[in-house]
């Protein structure tokens, strides 16, 4: 091999090494298409109208997926506190952290791998979306230097807006009344069935005077196999509340969907709630939207 060949080889290795942080990573979430652009808003709350097609993650982000994110971006150090100790010690928490030769390792707690991650702040979720763009947590979808980050022009992986979330959960182009919107995100206007998964097509994990599922009370993402929205998303009603992108009031972000500890009112289309974005709560997780669909 000539000297030039050696140099070209080294050049190629350096080039790949430099580009690797921006390369697509392994984590691939499952999305369902949400079409029917230009659909009407729900007459009950004037929400749900979306003028473009997009894709909604079929399930909430799990502990296994969030642990993969942590291992990718918070192994050396964790300057943004993406890991919260309650994930190991708190109620419904499902990720442990250990340290080996100065590096952190994150691992889902046994039995919690497919349960939704909790104790994530809005900022943690935004950084997860940024990371999905190519490895950098600080921009991509959201400019994290902004005091109130907004969706960037070239964003592809983002947190759902209230309208995107409501459309994916409740809108059914085949439904004739109420402008096509169901009352609950499992294609029903009656209270969903509070039963353990896999359940029926109108079942969800919420509290109806009794727990839907036995301990640990949260259910694996997508475990209600036939309980889904008209577009095919699972668990938008119940299991854990979900962070949304939409700013509520001066300084809060919307959360939606109810959870395993709340009665059915929180799963209804007319329910609205919000939290301070820095809160890391035992019953709030998230899911991702993919926009820019051709």
């Amino acid at each position: 091999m000539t000297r030039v060949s050696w140099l070209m080889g080294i050049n190629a290795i350096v080039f790949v090494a430099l580009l690797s942080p921006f390369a697509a990573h392994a984590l691939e979430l499952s999305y369902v298409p949400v079409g029917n652009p230009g659909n009407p808003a729900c007459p009950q709350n004037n929400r749900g109208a979306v003028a473009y097609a997009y894709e909604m993650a079929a399930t909430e982000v799990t502990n296994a997926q969030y642990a993969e994110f942590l291992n990718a971006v918070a192994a050396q150090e964790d300057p943004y506190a993406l890991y919260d100790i309650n994930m190991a010690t708190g109620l419904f928490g499902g990720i442990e952290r250990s340290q080996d030769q100065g590096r952190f390792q994150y691992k889902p707690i046994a039995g919690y791998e497919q349960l939704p991650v909790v104790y994530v702040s809005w900022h943690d979720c935004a950084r997860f979306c940024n990371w999905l763009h190519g490895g950098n947590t600080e921009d991509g979808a959201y400019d994290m230097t902004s005091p109130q980050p907004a969706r960037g022009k070239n964003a592809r992986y983002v947190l759902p807006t209230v309208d995107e979330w409501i459309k994916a959960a409740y809108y059914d182009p085949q439904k004739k009344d109420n402008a096509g919107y169901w009352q609950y995100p499992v294609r029903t206007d009656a209270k969903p069935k509070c039963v353990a998964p896999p359940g029926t097509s109108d079942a969800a994990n919420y509290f109806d005077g009794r727990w839907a599922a036995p301990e640990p009370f949260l259910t694996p993402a997508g475990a209600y196999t036939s309980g889904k929205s008209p577009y095919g998303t699972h668990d938008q009603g119940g299991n854990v509340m979900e962070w949304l992108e939409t700013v509520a009031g001066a300084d809060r972000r919307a959360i939606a969907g109810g959870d395993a500890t709340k009665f059915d009112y929180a799963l209804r289309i007319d329910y609205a709630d919000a939290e301070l974005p820095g809160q890391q709560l035992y019953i709030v997780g998230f899911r991702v939207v993919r926009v820019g669909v051709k």
Partner: protein
Amino acid sequence: MRLLTQEPFYGLECNAMANPTPPPPPQAGGKEPIPQAGGKEPIPQVGHEFFPPRLRGGRGGKLHSFFLGLGVFLLFTLSAQAMDFVPVGDAGNEPDPVYGYGAVPYVFEIGKYEITNEDYCEFLNAAASAEDPYGLYNPNMTTGLFGGIDRIGEGFPCEYRPKPEWARRPVVYVGWYDLARMANWLHYGKTEGTDTEGAYDTRAFPKSPDELVDPGRLPQRRNAKALFWIPSEDEWYKAAYFDPALYGERRYYDYPVRTWTTPENVPPEAGSPHAANFFLNQFSLGKPYFLSEAGSYTLASSYYATHDQGGNVWEWVENWRRNDTGWRDAEPTRGLRGGSCTYSFVGLHASNTDPGNPSHEMFVIGGRLARAAKDERGQYIFAPEPVVQEKTLLQEVSDKATRKRLLVAGLAGGFFAGLLVGWWAKRKTRTA
């Protein structure tokens, strides 16, 4: 509290004066505590007989006395843990000038601790072991998050036992109606009452959690002669936040562990006088129990020596939620106070009352009861009925409905006056 058999021995051990002198208030918020005002009436020495009135005195005779004595003996010897009450004196205190609650014009007693699984088991074994038509036991107490009671036996009769390590933790999955029935049982050994019998009139209580009842048919408060009851919001607030020894116009703390600053979010072993079991970036207690044992924050108490009014579990108050105009489908709600182990410091703050559907039985909702104190002559001090003040003429006129009626009456009167004037003018013209 220790129930021995269903009948005739039931009762409540009196520990009201177990801690008769409230501990000296700590310095907080830069304010210097002062001794109790000399002019104030001393707190009456309150205490209770062992048994509800119908089992005391009367025509009992020697046999009755024998059983009564045996009961007292067994009660003392077998009692695992008494349900303690503390006196709340300083009758006639002013309300909190900031949040408006806390004025109580009479002396009463309030549970020193939240009702525990052990306490509630006593109640269940007395009132729900042969049958349980009112759902006093909730299966979540066995299988649900934070539930601490096992039900022994299929069907009825059955027995209820606290789970190991859960006896002294607060009972949860109790609704407002369960507590009202517990108050009735403590009052006179029955869960059901009327407007003349028992502590609460249960006749209009919903038959199932889903039944919607017209709030106008439900009791607004305890019966006039109730011996036990769910504390009203003012009573609960006073017991939690009031301190007569404080300087200044406002004699209330913001948190029920005698402090104006956020309590310490630490486990009981830390021994802090200003700690509580709540969530602030982490759980005060955490796995595996999350709920702390009643009174385990031994140094952290209110002025009146109540424990855990801040944090651990939310507690029902008697009132419909003040200024409640309906919540979520106009559902009337009773107040919930004190926050919980899973909720932030906001729940512990004096400003916060959460709404609760009285039928809802949830994993972080429990409660404590209050009871009638006795005066120096041994007579019960009953809470007077709230005085409904007659409206002044100005208030009547400012009332929206009254204004509407006055407007209609004015318009009608004007119309008829116009007719009359027209008729009179026409007649006069003809006459001329």
